[in-house]
């Protein structure tokens, strides 16, 4: 082999393998690595010794041991997480995403598929198409993969029978037609024995198609993004001195050239490309996949998250869209809860305003649902707190794929694919008013704020708030008390007590409180509001100094002993479901602005404590 090799021309191909637990994915990849000389001598020694001790291939080599990396995986003989493998032939370099077939499959498969061009779908020749096969096909199609290999594995166990293969191929073609899939290549093989992996199988002379490896080496991925209008999401502004102001990013579509007229996504400002700096120096052009730094001909205000695009073919802008969302966390999605949405280099606050249906992967049907559980996929409407620049996922994976991040734990809890924008946000403006919050507050001679009372049912929230309001009124303050029970008779009478409804309940009350603060009032909110996330959302709707969280801290045992409304008794008897403190959680504030230890003080004393605090804050 000559230095540098001759594997360049086809570049990089990324693919994923999927199939059920025992269909032989890891064995297949292990065998590919083995055939491509990617297994070292010491790796081979290890493989031989482990095949004897923990291997599950009898006397033969257990190739799956080359792939399963974590200790727990080797012990249990399963694949827990997406693993990436690398091999190359003289014609191409490959990156394989090996994704597990068991419970957490949707999350891991979607992750592996997100960067793949080809999917290899394994089917056990003895079993034919399974429910998993159909599920996986649907996920792969949802993730925008257009090239599929139907790998009919374990042909050695059906005596290399052509009829078995033909039947499976035909069944799958019928199923795939409904799915709208194209570019399917069926290959009969044995991952264990090595038939049709890299060399044509002498046991199956009736098959005249490509081996798996030659298919992977030669397939041309018609890169859909190359022919499209260019998109440069700006990662960062490069400004070493006053003479240079460049915008760095990786082109996600098309080709840009020096002199091109451009438009900047968020502001719509116009300019032109003055220079393009690539890793190899100055260039006249750059294409999708290249990491560049460009300068523009005009002083334009651009920051991270903006998208530079052709003046006559810019990306869409919206603060609402419809999208498929895959939920990736053990705790279910609660529509209405605020999450961080990351798309390209943009980060905004978002919430799912409507869950239209849950996708049923087995039969491709749709069912109604109020939440999304771990590994479920839903079709949703999302609303953002400011517009983002995007393209549909179908047109551009990088401009239409997003992740959802929990704002408290920072975990990535979901991923989504934009179907379309729901409106052009730039056509909807805030109506500017001449009389503002300041003017209304000045007239009332007070500082508007929200006093958010949170605590268990029966803790004394409403009682304390009521005493406090009387005191404020007596002093000539303008107030309003929003009480959980009362609001549920009117504005929120359509909501129940599931987690999802509780989130929506609080969202509406927070919006109403915000309007009342805008009206210049001192608003008291007396709601159990059991979740930190929603209290935090309410806090973020107003100025930080305008939100005062009051924790009415009465131990559960005391609330239950009081049981003013007889609710605890009913909850214990199972007559009321989802009762906070009994079978629904309460998350106490970590740092309440005012902490009331309410078990041994009178409501008057507690109201006095809040009042004193308000004086200190110059609110009264």
């Amino acid at each position: 082999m000559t230095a540098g090799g001759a594997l360049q021309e086809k570049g990089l191909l990324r693919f994923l393998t999927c199939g059920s637990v025992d269909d032989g994915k890891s064995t297949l990849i292990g065998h590919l690595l083995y055939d491509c000389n990617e297994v070292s001598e010491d790796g081979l020694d290890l493989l031989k010794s482990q095949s004897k001790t923990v291997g599950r291939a009898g006397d033969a080599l257990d190739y799956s041991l080359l792939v399963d990396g974590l200790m727990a995986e080797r012990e249990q003989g399963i694949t827990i997480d997406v693993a990436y493998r690398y091999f190359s032939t003289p014609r191409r370099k490959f990156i394989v995403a090996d994704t597990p077939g068991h419970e957490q499959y949707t999350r891991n498969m979607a992750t592996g598929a997100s960067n793949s061009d080809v999917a290899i779908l394994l089917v056990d020749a003895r079993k034919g198409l399974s429910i998993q096969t159909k599920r996986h096909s649907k996920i792969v199609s949802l993730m925008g993969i257009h090239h599929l290999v139907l790998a009919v594995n374990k042909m050695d166990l059906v005596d290399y029978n052509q009829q078995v293969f033909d039947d499976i191929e035909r069944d799958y073609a019928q199923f795939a037609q409904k799915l709208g899939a194209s570019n399917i290549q069926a290959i009969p093989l044995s991952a264990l024995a090595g038939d049709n992996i890299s060399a044509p199988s002498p046991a199956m002379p009736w098959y005249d198609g490509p081996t798996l490896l030659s298919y992977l080496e030669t397939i041309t991925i018609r890169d859909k993004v190359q022919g499209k209008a260019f998109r440069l999401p700006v990662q960062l502004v490069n400004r070493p001195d006053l003479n240079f102001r460049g915008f760095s990013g990786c082109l996600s579509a098309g080709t840009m050239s020096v002199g091109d007229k451009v438009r900047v996504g968020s502001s719509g400002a116009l300019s032109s490309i003055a220079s393009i700096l690539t890793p190899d120096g100055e260039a006249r052009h750059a294409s999708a996949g290249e990491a560049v730094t460009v300068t523009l001909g005009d002083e334009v205000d651009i920051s991270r998250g903006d998208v530079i695009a052709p003046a006559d073919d810019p990306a869409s802008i919206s603060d609402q869209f419809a999208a498929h969302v895959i939920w990736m966390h053990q705790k279910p999605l609660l529509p209405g809860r605020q999450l961080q949405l990351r798309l390209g280099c943009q980060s905004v606050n978002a919430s799912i305003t409507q869950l239209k249906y849950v996708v049923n992967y087995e039969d491709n049907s749709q069912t109604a649902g109020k939440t999304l559980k771990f590994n479920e996929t839903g079709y949703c409407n999302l609303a953002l707190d400011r517009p983002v620049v995007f393209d549909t996922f179908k047109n551009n994976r990088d401009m239409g794929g997003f992740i959802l991040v929990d704002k408290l734990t920072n975990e990535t809890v979901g991923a989504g694919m934009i179907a379309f924008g729901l409106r052009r946000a730039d056509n909807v403006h805030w109506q500017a008013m001449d009389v503002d919050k300041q003017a209304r507050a000045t007239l009332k001679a007070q500082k508007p704020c929200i006093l958010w009372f949170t605590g268990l049912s029966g803790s004394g929230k409403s009682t304390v708030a009521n005493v406090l309001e009387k005191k404020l009124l007596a002093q000539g303050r303008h107030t309003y008390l929003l009480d959980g029970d009362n609001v549920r008779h009117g504005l929120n009478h359509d909501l129940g007590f599931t987690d999802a409804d509780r989130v929506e309940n609080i969202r509406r009350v927070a919006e109403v409180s915000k309007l009342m603060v805008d009206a210049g009032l001192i608003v008291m909110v007396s709601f159990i509001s059991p979740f930190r996330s929603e209290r935090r959302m309410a806090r973020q709707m107003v100025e930080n100094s305008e939100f005062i969280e009051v924790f009415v801290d009465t131990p559960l045992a005391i609330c239950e002993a009081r049981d003013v409304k007889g609710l605890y008794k009913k909850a214990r008897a199972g007559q009321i479901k989802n009762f906070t403190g009994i079978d629904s959680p309460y998350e106490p504030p970590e740092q309440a602005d005012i902490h009331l230890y309410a078990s041994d003080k009178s409501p008057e004393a507690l109201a006095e404590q809040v009042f004193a605090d308000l004086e200190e804050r110059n609110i009264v």
Partner: protein
Amino acid sequence: MAEKPAYLTQLEAQSITILREVAAQFEKPVLMYSIGKDSAVLLHLAMKAFAPAKLPFSLLHVDTGWKFREMISFRDKLMKKLGLDLIVHTNTAGTEAGITPFSHGSARYTDVMKTQSLKEALSQHGFDVAIGGARRDEEASRAKERIFSFRTKDHRWDAKNQRPELWNLLNGRINSGESVRAFPLSNWTELDVWRYILAEDIPLVPLYFAALRPVVERDGMVVMVDDDRMSLEADEAVEQRMVRFRTLGCYPLTGAISSSAANVAQIIEELSDSRLSERANRAIDHDEAGSMEKKKQEGYF
């Protein structure tokens, strides 16, 4: 310079994009510079990612005091030439306690002088992200690690509970005290690294190239006698052999291989035929099965 193959241009662009995300998402990044070939590529990519501006990162070398002398002189010369400031951190408590690879065994020595030392340095300077040159093809547990790999306040890695990474979206959100290890070379293989070094003409420590060096054979490993701190057993004799190193670390723990490859092109040729894995000559990976995974959970790079 050799022509850069298309796939290397793709890998290069992806790594640069990752480095820019690090700069954009974190407040105080540090690039781990270990003097080896992967660090050399990482540093080269970082300079490209932010040109014409200067590197927006600090550089950190965790020095155990047992690196090859040639590594240290190469390091100091390169930093001077590039005009970069390097933080060199040594676990002085470990040095004072007399912990050496000879006296305490590789496992204990590595824990104190590398893992603990690294954690100490990261905490001391308050870095919220550390960029490393690790690759997924190096070792089985690395194959599952994320590009942005979350660490708890105690620098621990939870392999079973990692953030999914989709498309090019990297989630670097952390709370105060937590941190991320970022791996821009995740998708590179050892051969990719060498081909890139060839194409870009990146300078390396001469130890990578074959030369006559003074070595002894000990426990099946060919060890270079780099200074007089290494005392010889009765049956050991220093001999001059034509050797080179596939990876570089602490000289008592890094085995040499017999080779005549004296330049990058020859190394690529040798590797293309080679059937020994890259870390086969590293003592610390062989202590017990799953040893890298355990070390990583505890905070090792």
